[in-house]
């Protein structure tokens, strides 16, 4: 049962991170393709967005390994 719980925790965490990262990256690429001169500003926004999105699945990975 522990392995099942770990799999569900990591799977759902990764699903959320995948959707979030996909949205952020697609908008950033769109913005850079339209206005390449705004690359620095978009880099900063993307960095903070991806960083915050990935915090939660990392906690999920940690909790999954602890319950296993």
């Amino acid at each position: 049962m522990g392995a099942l719980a770990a799999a569900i925790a990591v799977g759902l965490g990764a699903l959320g991170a995948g959707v979030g990262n996909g949205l952020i990256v697609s908008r950033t690429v769109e913005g850079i393709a339209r206005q390449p001169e705004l690359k620095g500003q978009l880099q900063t926004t993307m960095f903070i967005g991806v960083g915050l999105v990935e915090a939660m699945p990392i906690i999920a990975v940690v909790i999954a390994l602890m319950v296993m």
Partner: protein
Amino acid sequence: MSQFEKMTARQRKWMFYLLAIFVLGAGFTPYPRIFLGLLLGSIVSFYNLYLLQKKIVDFTDAAANKTPTRGIGTVSRFAAAALAIIIALRMEENFHIIAVLIGLMTSYLVIMIDFALYNIKHSSKKEG
């Protein structure tokens, strides 16, 4: 130096300060297990931060130059966090597991606090 490069330099500087504090704590306080856990977690967190910064620069450069690129390294970062936790679980007598978890979140705290301070500083400059 672009805004992004300045931000990454500031974040690395704060991470180095935190690592120095954790090393001092592990060496000179009566709680070496907790500080070693924090140290392990924040070293992996620093690696994750470095990887995130590098991958985002590579990715956005590729997007601007319209060259093909690979991912942004999400799996590598998860794997690094899992490695830290496995090390902590295998050597439980040396590393406190909750401290490792808190250490893993260090870089995210640094990102958030740095961004908030930068925004406050620049909004007050615009007003003043």
